[in-house]
């Protein structure tokens, strides 16, 4: 662990990513303190450019963009993290069952996974939210439903290779139950790969969430980055900053998560470093 930490901090882009990510988390945490008012409230003249009276300017209705971006961080991060956690649980369960038991169960579950990988996932997410109604719950459900397949494939591969290792066969010959072998011996050994892939999945989930809310498929009562960009689109010609600012926030957050994920990969899987 100590060695892993020092490897992580030797990796400069990863440290930069971590600092960026901490800034975003801090901003989301302090949104209610810095801008206690409703982010939908009109606070000044519309179309004020950034760095004037309001830090990031105002939009076409005179709403403070900085307040919108800070409050939007909460929604976007919440949806990204919760959807990813669900996707990880589903992916680990399906991939683990397939990899551990193998045989017909494996081929059945893998056909199922392949099917989900064939479906154009963004269209499927749009369809799900359109049918279930635009709420935070259905957005989270849709994102987790389209994000689990890569995790299932990864975990299946890891479990399959673990299954034939000597220490696992020793467990089997000792008469240990399946549950104990899986949860005490195999899962902890695959945790580092799961963490790395899971962290990168959060970035993808945020991109999907912002895409959906850009198209108007988000909870109408919560501020989110994609929503601000979508509503600012019609005034692009006169007020480019309405779209530009929340987009920068998405870009920086997603980049930060990717950099941290790459750094974790180097730190936790040192043998894969050459890739």
């Amino acid at each position, binding site marked *: 662990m100590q060695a892993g930490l020092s490897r992580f901090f030797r990796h400069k882009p990863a440290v930069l990513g971590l600092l960026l990510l901490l800034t975003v988390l801090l901003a989301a945490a302090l949104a209610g303190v810095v801008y206690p008012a409703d982010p939908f409230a009109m606070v000044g003249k519309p179309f004020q450019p950034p760095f004037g009276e309001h830090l990031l300017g105002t939009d076409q209705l005179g709403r403070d963009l900085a307040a919108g971006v800070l409050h939007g961080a909460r929604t976007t991060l919440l949806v990204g993290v919760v959807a990813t956690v669900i996707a990880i649980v589903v992916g680990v369960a399906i991939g683990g069952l397939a990899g551990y038991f193998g045989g017909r169960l494996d081929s059945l579950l893998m056909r199922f996974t392949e099917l989900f990988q064939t479906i154009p996932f963004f269209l499927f997410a749009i369809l799900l939210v359109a049918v*279930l109604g635009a709420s935070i719950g259905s957005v989270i459900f849709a994102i987790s439903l389209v994000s689990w397949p890569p995790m299932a494939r990864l975990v299946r591969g890891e479990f399959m290779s673990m299954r034939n290792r000597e220490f696992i066969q020793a467990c089997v010959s000792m008469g240990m139950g399946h549950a104990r072998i899986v949860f005490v011996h195999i899962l902890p050994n695959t945790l580092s790969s799961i963490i790395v892939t899971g962290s990168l999945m959060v970035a993808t989930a945020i991109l999907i969430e912002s895409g959906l809310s850009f198209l108007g498929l988000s909870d109408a009562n919560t501020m989110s980055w994609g929503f601000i960009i979508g509503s600012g689109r019609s005034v692009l010609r006169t007020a480019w900053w309405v779209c530009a600012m929340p*987009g920068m926030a998405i870009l920086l957050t997603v980049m930060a998560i990717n950099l941290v994920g790459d750094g974790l990969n180097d730190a936790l899987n040192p043998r894969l470093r050459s*890739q």
Partner: protein
Amino acid sequence: MAWNQSAAYALRRLLQAVPTVLVIVALNFLLLKLAPGDAADVLAGEAGSATPEFMAQLREKFGLDQPLGVQLLLYMKQIVTFDLGYSFRHSMPVAELILSRLGPTLLLMVTVFGLAVGAGALLGSLAARNLNRWQDNMISMLTVLAYATPVFWAGLMLIVLFSIKLGWFPTSGMQQVAAFHEGFAKVRDIAHHLVLPAFTLTMFYMALYTRLMRASVLEQSSMDYVVTARAKGLTERQIARRHVFRNALLPVVTMAGVQAGAMLGGAVVVETVFAWPGLGLLAYESLFARDLNLLLGIFFVSTCLVVIVNLIVDLAYSFLDPRIELR
């Protein structure tokens, strides 16, 4: 490789795709049932009002009073004959509507696919050949940025810069409707409109393929055949071009094929931003018109498209690499 052998392979793969398509149809049916209201409600809504007797009559006509299993079979029978229903918003059969919008999407996708794989392969091998030098660092910085940029936002920012500020490219559409260009002028006009949407989508996928290509080239560079080539006196440039590049490209092309579905999803967003008149824009319009039947039709057709693209990539792969056994 014999032609009839690969034809048999293609046929077998096509048969394997049948269950996939059937499951998608079942999924579509499930979503249709989950949505509030049924076809009779929609029809009655379009007509303005309806008595309960008329509604019951309508339900009987569409088989909506049958058990779910029978309804599913009816639905499958409908889809197999490529009857995707009727769009009341557009007063047109869904299948016809989708077919008329397929061309622009295919044009956009093929362009992006070619550009992204081509540029990604070049940049990736350039990065791998200059490992940890400034070229490598520059390229990886570029890919990190491009990979984190939301596609729709990149499109909007490109519109601000190149259409609004500089006036180089049109903001939306596929051609100047009022100009009635013919022949070469029409091709030029479409190409002019294609630049920004294609560039927007290419950036993201180029970043992905650059990373893949870099890893792939690094992996190939430690292979025995590279040592052999070096031993027989080939220059590094010759080895890189003739041997490593071709072998390293294969996994990238496969990945690109697998990603076809994701790229189609990206096309939805890009088409919406640039009002490119393809399937994606149609999906966005149907979302707003609450035309679920049309949205389901688009979903079905695009999934079939992905199955076909995967098949083509598989076949291309076996042609490019004769070591692959056709099973």
